């Protein structure tokens, strides 16, 4: 699969088939993703990838536990002006409309949130963390690596959904996988598997701002 198709076809998949993931394909992706760039070549990303019994055990623990307070980091920035929540609302509304869910239906929305615990039925979940000392540029590096993984997964016919939701259970997750809470911060989970092509939540039209709102050009005639 070429890069443009991988970028365009990657979406946050929120309904997976129970088709297992080939461990060799996964390993290939993770090996290749090591070539992702990072400032000073720090490669600050770390991850544990779970499947089968350990994954089910972790998911049961998360479902039974209250969310930690506060979450690992502010999932949405403090003092964010309305322009940004509007972008979330837009895409949320696009999905609700496609699924025929009334946006005011709290029970239906809560069910959507609960699907996060089980990573939308994905057979594999990657938990991504890094040393707490890392600053904003290193968080960006971790992002470069995560997108590299997501695009390489597309190349293997696999789908994903990055889940900041896991930051609400960061301590529990780290304890389960044996990562120090003192030294490391959990950034996100990533559901990995095969998308259910029939699910409406995997097919609605996603919204983005126009590129000219984000990028300016100087010196081009």
């Amino acid at each position: 699969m070429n890069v443009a198709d991988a970028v365009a076809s990657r979406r946050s998949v929120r309904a997976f088939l129970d088709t297992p993931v080939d461990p060799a394909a996964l390993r290939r992706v993770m090996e290749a993703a090591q070539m992702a760039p990072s400032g000073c070549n720090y490669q600050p990303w770390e991850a544990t990838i779970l499947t089968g019994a350990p994954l089910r055990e972790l998911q049961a623990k998360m479902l039974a536990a209250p969310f930690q307070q506060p979450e690992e980091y502010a999932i949405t920035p403090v003092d964010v002006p309305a322009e940004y929540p509007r972008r979330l609302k837009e895409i949320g509304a696009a999905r609700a409309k496609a699924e025929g869910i009334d946006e005011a239906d709290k029970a239906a929305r809560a069910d959507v949130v609960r699907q996060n615990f089980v990573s939308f039925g994905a057979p594999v979940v990657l938990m991504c963390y890094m040393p707490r000392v890392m600053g904003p540029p290193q968080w960006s590096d971790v992002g470069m690596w995560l997108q590299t993984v997501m695009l390489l997964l597309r190349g293997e016919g696999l789908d994903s959904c990055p889940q900041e939701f896991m930051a609400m259970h960061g301590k529990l997750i780290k304890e389960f996988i044996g990562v120090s809470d003192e030294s490391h911060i959990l950034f996100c989970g990533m559901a990995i598997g095969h998308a259910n092509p029939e699910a409406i939540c995997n097919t609605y039209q996603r919204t983005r701002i126009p590129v000219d709102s984000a990028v300016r050009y100087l010196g081009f005639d």
Partner: protein
Amino acid sequence: MDVSQAVASRRSVRQFRPDPVDPEVLRRVLTKAQRSPSGSNIQPWHAVVLTGEPLARLQLAVAAEFPKGRAGHSIPFHMNPVGIDGIYRERLFGVGESLYAALEISRDDKAGRLRQYARNYKGFGAPVMMLVHTKAYMGQAQWADIGMWLQTVMLLLREEGLDSCPQLCWADYTKQVRACVAMPDDHVFYCGISIGYREAEAAVNTFDVPRAVLDDVVRFEGF
């Protein structure tokens, strides 16, 4: 170009050919990159793409400050984390030594190393530079989103036959960068990224770039 080829062939190119970059290609890449993911669909990335006269002006402004050393730097940026483990220094030295070995610049040749470092501020000869910035209140998670977008851009550039080099070092001259492109006051500047065509034979573009062994950074459970 296959995704895996794009990932494997992307490297921080440090010698570009002077050939111009088609603006249409850049627009195509940046338009496609808007599909990059972000938490809560926040899309926190901002960029200014420079070429020609504005780019030359920025390079001149920085060149005027460069001889002052650290005294010429703007407000120190959080570029190097405090209290970082030795393993990360090893990774930095690993790539640094590979680079200088390829260029046959010895450890004692301080002037030679400084000359090579100064090439950063000419964008290694690239005809285009993109300056990346974001709103100051964006948190760690949004910085990760910006990284996802940047790598999307770099991989899409590969598919167009183009190369890039992301450069944190421009943050040392934030003041000059801000002034040259009229960056809004409530934004922070993150990095520059040089864009152009690689000089394929150059030693600086062909040495083996070391990476950590997969098993040192990723664990598999339940497989």
